[in-house]
């Protein structure tokens, strides 16, 4: 049987132009890897939107990162000041991963 370890699965839903900044904070918090997923459309307090608006400013994206609990907490704290002004959504779940040395 493969041995697994616990880790945090972090999702940050943000405006696409902000991705480089989020990635910067991820790295500064010691998280070494991330993946970016495209969001097609959605809705919230500001009404509905869809990605076909080629003006990148309205596009949204999910940054997915797997991290150990302590680096995840460091990241959450580092991101805190941006949460309101940038209207980010931060979602953290518990998962099991293999190859723990990667994180």
């Amino acid at each position, binding site marked *: 049987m493969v041995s697994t370890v616990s880790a945090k699965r972090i999702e940050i839903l943000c405006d696409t132009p902000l991705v480089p900044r989020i990635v910067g904070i991820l790295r500064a918090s010691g998280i070494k890897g991330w993946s970016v997923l495209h969001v097609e459309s959605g809705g919230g307090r500001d*009404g*509905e939107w869809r990605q*076909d608006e080629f003006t990148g400013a309205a596009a949204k994206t999910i940054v997915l990162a797997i991290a150990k609990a302590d680096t995840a907490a460091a990241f959450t704290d580092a991101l805190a000041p941006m949460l309101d002004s940038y209207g980010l959504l931060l979602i953290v779940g518990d998962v099991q991963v293999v190859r723990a040395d990667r994180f």
Partner: protein
Amino acid sequence: MIVETLTSPVILFFVLGFIAALIKSDLSIPEAFAKAMSIYLMAAIGLKGGIEVADSGFTPDLAAAAIAGLVLSFALPFLAFALLKSFGRLGQVDAGAVAAHYGSVSVVTFVTAKEILTASGLEPQGYMVAVLALMETPAIISGLLLARWGMTQTDRNGDGGGGLWHEVLANASVVLLVGSFIIGMIAGKEGFEAVRPLFDTGFRGVLCLFLLDMGLIAARRLTQSRKLTVRLAILAVALPIINGTIGTVTGSLIGLDVASAAALGVLTASASYIAVPAAMRLALPEADPGIYLSMSLGISFPFNIIFGISIFAALARALG
């Protein structure tokens, strides 16, 4: 000329998109295709501008138009800011962000104007493409100055220094416009022959499909917006008229031909909806995108396309 404008396929496709979105049709242009078309349009217009400048050489007109464009893009946000704060009742940050949009320019408005003006016998000079590229960014500086005026450093959480300046100067549309312009200058008329079929003959058809998409986007912005007040909607028409008039008059005063003065008017009247929103999202995250995108895309863009171009052409004709 408004009648001609309204029966041109290019504008009719815009109207079709607008109506389709109003009746909530599920018609939509794939994002990747829309981006591809905007890349195509910018490359084509850059190339053509460069070739014409290669043909005519650097003229005093060109320098005058370039300086005028730079100054107007930098200065007009100050006027817009004052109107947005007083009449529009926006806060400082939102007013600064919106002002930056109206100082900068819209590539598609320019391209459409070039088509419509040329069709009615008024072809702007090739160097106006360079002016277009020059006018994209100065307004971002003034907008940020205005939005941050009197703030202490700690309030400025967004600025991100170098990151923003890099974003602004190396942004895709500036690089593509300037790059294709230079390629056009190097390749010249002869070199262009080989690629003319794609970039020249296909141009207007692509513009039709692109404006179909713009119509969809503009109408969706307008109907889905919850931030647009009557006062802001009025300004979204008034600012293009004011800025466009200033631009056209300036163009005439510095001695541009009628067509180029009209084109300068359209440039100053137009509002950015690609480069500036992206910069504002980074530098002024507290500014509300719902406001600046609704005004620029939802109202000013359609206004300029359908009425503005004819208005500034008529004005330039009257002045010239």
